[in-house]
Structures are given as structure tokens and as C-alpha cells.
């Protein structure tokens, strides 16, 4: 099992620079620096947060809304992507509109959503879902468009119904592109989740970071930064594993696009 995991990760000795950086930081900042406290102080601050009972609900809130928003966004993006992708006419008519919407930075959605829908967890999940759905939608449309027309000839010659065609050919053929979109959506969703928390004050790690910043508690801020880093890394790893498992039956791709 460990062996299988390590195929996703580069050699461990590559962590040396990071460890070195932290070690040097620890030693250089023996005198308490207000802005760049040493790593051991981060740990203390986090432990304090945890024992005060503030850490766990925040992490849970962040993770839960992230997962819900991402799942919703991927499902919506995939469904809409299929809808748009399977019709050449719809694709052409919507192409410019989609290009413009794609160019909109996701953060911009937040004030709009807040203004229209107010401050609530469901607004937060909706915003995460909307921003996450874009890469999924666009990649799914591209995936459908790339299905060789020969496959559709095959479907017709086998006299498959439209539903059978969709299920046995279109959807499986689009899965690799869909997963590419999900990978992008993952990082966008992380950013959006934290940003919503920082902007609206809805519960989560982002709020804790802002509170720490306002209280000039740099150790807490750095500690939370490290936690966010670890979480982001783990989420990416989980995705890579899931993607690897799902894509086992597809021919190997010629290299990821990101």
C-alpha cells in the first residue's frame, strides 16, 4: 500500500530544502521576531487554538463546505458540459459567452453572490460550486467535442438508442477530460472556500487567519498557513490516487496538461 502511494510522490530526500528552511528559520529567530516567528512557536499557537476549541469546528466547516461545493460544482459542470458538448449548434452559439465567463476571475463571483443572496452557508457552497464548475464544464465540452465521429458511426451501426449511446460511449469517452477539469476545479475550490471565509466571516480556517492577523498573532497565522498547506497537499494526493484508479482502464495519456 505504501509502495503504491509512493509512485505518486517524488523521492523523499527532496524534502531536504523545506526541512532546511524550517530548521534555519528556527535557529535564526531565537529572539522573538514579531513578523516571522520561529516554527516551534507556530506549533504552540496551534495547540493553543486546538485546546480552546476553536480549531476543530473551523477545519470541519472549511472541509465540509469545500467538499459539498466541489461535488456540486463537478456534477453541474459535467451535466452542463455534456448538454452543451453533444450539440454542435449549442456549442457554437455559446462559445463566445463561455469564453468571456471563463475569463472572469472566480473571486469576483463572491461579492455578487453576497449581494444577491446574503451571508449564509448555502450561499458559500453555491459560490464554491459555481466557480468550481467552470473548468469542469469547459473540459467536458472539449472532451465531448473530441470524440471521434467514427464512434458515433459505430453507435448508429450497432443501432444503439440515444440513451445507450450516451451511457456507453459519450460519458466514458469524456471521463479523462472530466477528471482534468476536476483537478483544476480542486485548486479553484480551495481558493474560493478560503476567500469566502476571509471576505464574509463565515466560519472556517480563513476566519481564524483573519482574526489572528487582526490580533497581530503572527505565530497563529503562520501555523494556520501550515495547516492549510498540509490540507491542500492531502486533498491533491487523494485526488491523484482516485484519478489513477479510475483511469486504469483508459489508454495512457501523453502527459498532463497542468
Amino acid at each position, binding site marked *: 500500500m505504501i509502495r503504491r502511494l509512493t509512485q505518486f510522490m517524488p523521492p523523499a530526500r527532496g524534502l531536504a530544502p523545506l526541512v532546511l528552511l524550517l530548521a534555519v528559520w528556527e535557529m535564526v529567530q531565537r529572539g522573538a521576531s514579531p513578523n516571522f516567528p520561529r516554527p516551534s512557536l507556530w506549533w504552540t499557537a496551534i495547540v493553543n487554538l486546538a485546546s480552546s476549541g476553536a480549531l476543530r469546528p473551523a477545519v470541519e466547516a472549511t472541509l465540509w463546505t469545500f467538499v459539498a461545493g466541489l461535488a456540486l460544482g463537478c456534477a453541474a459542470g459535467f451535466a452542463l458540459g455534456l448538454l452543451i458538448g453533444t450539440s454542435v449548434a449549442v456549442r457554437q452559439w455559446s462559445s463566445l459567452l463561455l469564453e468571456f465567463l471563463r475569463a472572469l476571475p472566480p473571486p469576483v463571483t463572491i461579492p455578487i453572490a453576497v449581494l444577491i443572496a446574503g451571508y449564509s452557508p448555502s450561499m458559500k457552497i453555491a459560490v464554491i460550486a459555481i466557480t468550481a464548475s467552470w473548468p469542469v464544464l469547459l473540459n467536458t465540452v472539449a472532451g465531448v467535442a473530441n470524440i471521434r465521429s*467514427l*464512434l458515433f*458511426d459505430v453507435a448508429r*451501426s*450497432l*443501432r444503439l438508442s440515444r440513451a445507450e449511446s450516451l451511457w456507453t*460511449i459519450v460519458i*466514458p*469517452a469524456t471521463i479523462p477530460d472530466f477528471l482534468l477539469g476536476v483537478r483544476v476545479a480542486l485548486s479553484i475550490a480551495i481558493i474560493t472556500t478560503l476567500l469566502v471565509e476571509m471576505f464574509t466571516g463565515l466560519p472556517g480556517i480563513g476566519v481564524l487567519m483573519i482574526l489572528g492577523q487582526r490580533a497581530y498573532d503572527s505565530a497563529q497565522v503562520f501555523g494556520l498557513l501550515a495547516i492549510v498547506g498540509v490540507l491542500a497537499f492531502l486533498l491533491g494526493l487523494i485526488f491523484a490516487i482516485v484519478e489513477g484508479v479510475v483511469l486504469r482502464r483508459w489508454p495512457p495519456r501523453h502527459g498532463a496538461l497542468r
Partner: protein
Amino acid sequence: MQTIFDLENVALSLSVNGAARAILRDVSFSVAQGEILTIVGASGTGKTSLLRLLAGLNRQTSGTLNFRGTPIDGPQDGVAIVFQDYTNALLQWRTVGNNVALGLPRKLDRAGRAARIGDTLRLVGLERNAGDYPWQLSGGMQQRVQIARALVADPSVLLMDEPFAALDAMTKAALQDELLRVRDETDASIVFITHDIEEAIYLGNRVAVLAGSPGAITRIFAIDIPFPRHQVTTRERPAFLRLRHEIHDAIGGHA
């Protein structure tokens, strides 16, 4: 002897980039039950388009095209197609067995399906590859998977669009013989498109020459060489060599 396909004055025009282009003009021939009709012609004469008409994938612009006496209005029951591009004609994410299963008629029950798939894979020599994925197999094997998919529903007609063109010479020869053997066992009629004259003679009961642009059937040769055929000796027979000459001239005679 029943007539499977009957074409009279069939013409086909397709719109390419907004302009109409004539692909086929005045094609007339018929295919009898149980025969192998090979259609040979140079590139650009509309061979693939003709096959697509027979397959019901396109509709002709004018003329009559009948399958068992009734006009064709779409892909027909009992007609199976094997395409040249096996990589994109197979579902690469499905196992060989599941790819073949796609060709099965709906109403079969689970045991029946398994049995049919097994038998057909045995027929093409792939019984040990049922669990493999197409992308793990060689070109020749992938093409055999496509043939198996076509055969699993026990079709009365097999339409093949230059199926061996993308394969190396040895694999091509092996598959040609395999096709003849399979035909003996299943008794299907075959319409086989190729640009390879020798292949056309080797496989066919009759060879139809598609020539000109837009294309038309200019001559049909009866192949009076008996079955079973042999890769080396058959190709040395005087009749074979004579036909090769004549067909070559028939193709080249039209610009």
C-alpha cells in the same frame, strides 16, 4: 439465390464546405446471398462512401438502394460493419469481451451472452484476451476484436471498409485467411472494400471495379478460382495473374 443488396443508378452528392461535391455517379450492382463481393478502386473514388450507403449511415442522393427488396433507411438488422480505424472504432476503455458484447442483440440472457461472446472470441482466436483492453493489444488483434464484435450477432451481411489496410503484410495475410475460414463457418455474405488488387482477387467471388471521380462501377469480374485458396499457390495461378492485369487496367483506364 436471394439478392441481399440491389443498387440501381445510385448517385451521391455531399456538401463539402458549403459546396456540393459529387462523390458517386450511377452505381449499379447487386450482391447475392453467400457471396464475397470485393470492391476495388483507387483513393478518392468514393469506396468508403459507397460502403456507408450500404450500411445505412448515409442516404443516397438519387437511385434505388434495396436491402432484401426494401429500400434502406438506416442501419439494418443483420448487417454488421468493420471499419478501417480499429483504434477509434473500439471502445478503448472497455475490455475485449465487453467490446464484443456491444454487438449482441438485446434480448439475450446472461448465460446466452457469455456463451456467444466466448464462441465468437474462439472463432477469431482471442479466447484468452477477453479481459484485456484494446490498447494493450496489437493492431491485428484489435481488428480481430472488431470482427468479433461484428460476428457475435450472427449477421447475414458483413460490410468491411479496408479493414486490413493499416496492418503489416504478414498480419494482413493471416487475417485474410481467417476471414475466409470464418465465412466458411458462418456463411455470411461479405462486401469487402480495398485498394489492394491482389487482396480483392484473393478474397472475392466477384470483384467490382469502382473508378473515376465521381466514382461508378465500371466492370465486375467473376473470379473463377476455386476455394479453398492459398496465399502462395493461388497467387501464382495463371487465372489470378490474368485477372490482376485486367483489373489493374480497368482501374487505371479511367482518370
